[in-house]
């Protein structure tokens, strides 16, 4: 087990290096740099002034040199400063990460808390009215763009209750209730898609598991149905749920950007998106690496959990 985890981590290293190079090159191939963004076309700056400004920002010199400088510093824990506001990139990301992680945590919590039971009922009462209703609801969930749902939620609460989530970020450690009231709407908007998928998947997997020989054997032996479902079937149905959670963590780390923008949250996706628009290279590079590392770790965790949930999957 430990050897497996260790090997996976070792595997991740070359992957991360390639990602860092790919991102490094791609953002530099984008048209324009931070100076273009800052200057726009409206200012009568001379080429010499532009060049001096580029030098000041460390944007001159060969890509190879720039890359190794960045990598060298990053390995020593220095991710540089934002080209836009000279803040240390690590500070910006450390502020952004907890927001996005909490958002993802809550969204997936809602998704599983609703998705699993409804999926189970759907499977157990296959082709019942309940089954069809939850399947259709699930599909509607998959088909609503979350940015639209988020807008609707905001307009609804502001019109009907004269309320919007508190605008200033409050840490859950300081004031859990305010924090929750702040995160509940965006988390809800984000949860709809994973919820629908989890529900569908639990249903499918349950159907499959319920038809397996060992489940039928257990039933034949007189084990109560409820026990069969909870002990055997559900346990197996959880495996793909865990998989999808690992996947959604990766997607939402960067993909919650639009929801974060709408709710005015300076999360990871929002930060990364602005950084890309501003050609803030150090911030883009560090944010992407952070997302990649989190994604890889999340999936490693999922794989380990796999082994725990399903003893039949043995890690070699």
């Amino acid at each position: 087990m430990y050897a497996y985890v260790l090997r996976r981590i070792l595997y991740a290293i070359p992957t991360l290096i390639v990602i860092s190079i790919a991102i490094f090159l791609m953002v530099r191939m984008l048209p324009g740099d931070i100076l273009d963004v800052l200057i726009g076309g409206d200012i009568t700056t001379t080429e010499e002034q532009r060049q001096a400004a580029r030098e000041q920002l460390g944007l001159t010199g060969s890509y190879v040199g720039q890359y190794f400088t960045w990598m060298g510093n990053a390995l020593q824990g220095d991710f540089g400063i934002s080209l836009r506001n000279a803040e240390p990139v690590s500070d910006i990301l450390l502020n952004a990460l907890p927001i996005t992680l909490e958002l993802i945590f809550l969204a997936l919590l809602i998704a599983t808390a609703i998705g699993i039971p409804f999926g189970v009922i759907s499977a157990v009462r296959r082709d019942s009215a309940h089954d069809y209703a939850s399947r259709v609801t699930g599909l509607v969930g998959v088909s609503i763009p979350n940015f639209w749902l988020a807008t609707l939620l905001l307009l609804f609460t502001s019109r009907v209750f004269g309320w919007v989530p508190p605008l200033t970020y409050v840490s859950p450690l300081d004031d859990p209730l305010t924090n929750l009231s702040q995160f509940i709407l965006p988390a809800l908007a984000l949860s709809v898609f994973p919820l629908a998928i989890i529900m569908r998947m639990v249903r499918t997997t349950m159907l499959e598991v319920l038809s397996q020989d060992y489940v039928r054997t257990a039933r034949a032996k007189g084990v109560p149905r409820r026990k069969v479902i909870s002990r055997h079937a559900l346990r197996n149905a959880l495996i793909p749920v865990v998989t999808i959670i690992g996947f959604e963590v990766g997607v939402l780390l960067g993909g919650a950007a639009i929801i974060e923008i709408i709710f005015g949250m300076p999360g990871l996706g929002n930060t990364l998106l602005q950084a890309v628009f501003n050609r803030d290279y150090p911030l883009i590079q560090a944010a992407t690496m952070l997302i990649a590392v989190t994604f890889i770790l999340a999936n490693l965790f999922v794989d380990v959990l796999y082994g725990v949930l399903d003893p039949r999957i043995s890690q070699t």
Partner: protein
Amino acid sequence: MSGQLVPEGPRPETVTAPVVRTVKKPLLGRWSNPIGIVGALIVGLMILVAVFGQYVWVVDPDAQDYERLLAPSWDNPMGTDELGRDILARIIHGARVSLQVGFISVGIAMFFGTSLGLVAGYYKGVADGLLMRIVDIMFSIPGLVLAILIAGLLGPSRRNAMIAIGIIIIPVFARVIRGAVLEVMGYPYIESARALGAPGRRIMRKHVLPNVVAPLIVLVTVYLSVAILAEAALSFLGLGTQPPEASWGSMLNTSRAYLDFAPWYSIFPGAAIMVVVLGFNFLGDGLRDILDPRLGPVVGTLPIEKK
């Protein structure tokens, strides 16, 4: 693995083992899947609208001929938008755009993803390791960033949005197909075929591909809807279809600004997206039940390597 039972008792449909899946079973029972039929009808209708709609509702979707933000009426059954264009005409034109986005981007993902997955799963070893690392890398770069990079490098246009969405979905196809291939490759009959000296290409075509078709079809239908939604998200960032052309995604995005006093503007493109996504998903569900009711989760098997 043969018949299926739910606790309540036997279920109507029968199941085929993977080996003989290409062998025909009585069709009628399998094809009379209500959800699948509804899905097929919806998708068919949408295609009809996309192709022939403009000959039925002969209004120029880009002409700014009306007052802005008119409520639905006989002249404009879905009202008009913020520039005084007929929303129905734009929905019809948008069907074309959105379906095209769906088909082409999924086509890109299907072609490259399936190739990657087949090669990786079939040859295993070094090829597998290398290709899957590439897939890992593609997975680890956030989709939005990738889309912005591609739009930035190639310029914003519908074509490039389709390329971007296609590229973002490639790893999903690669993973799932690889998984399916690996599973097939473990069956004894493949090993015996190999032992008998059957050429690799023949094994691939005769035995591996057919087993990959079921998950592929399901993936395609699910990701058609994901692609249409992704275009909407790209429109939110201004990276999708270019003005003044209508796509459902860009209409929905623009209409947010008028939700307060022109809700119909939002409702129609929103409903259009919902209906077509429902259609594709129903179709996918139906096809899955038909082709392989035993087949595991669709989206769930996406990214994770089962070691």
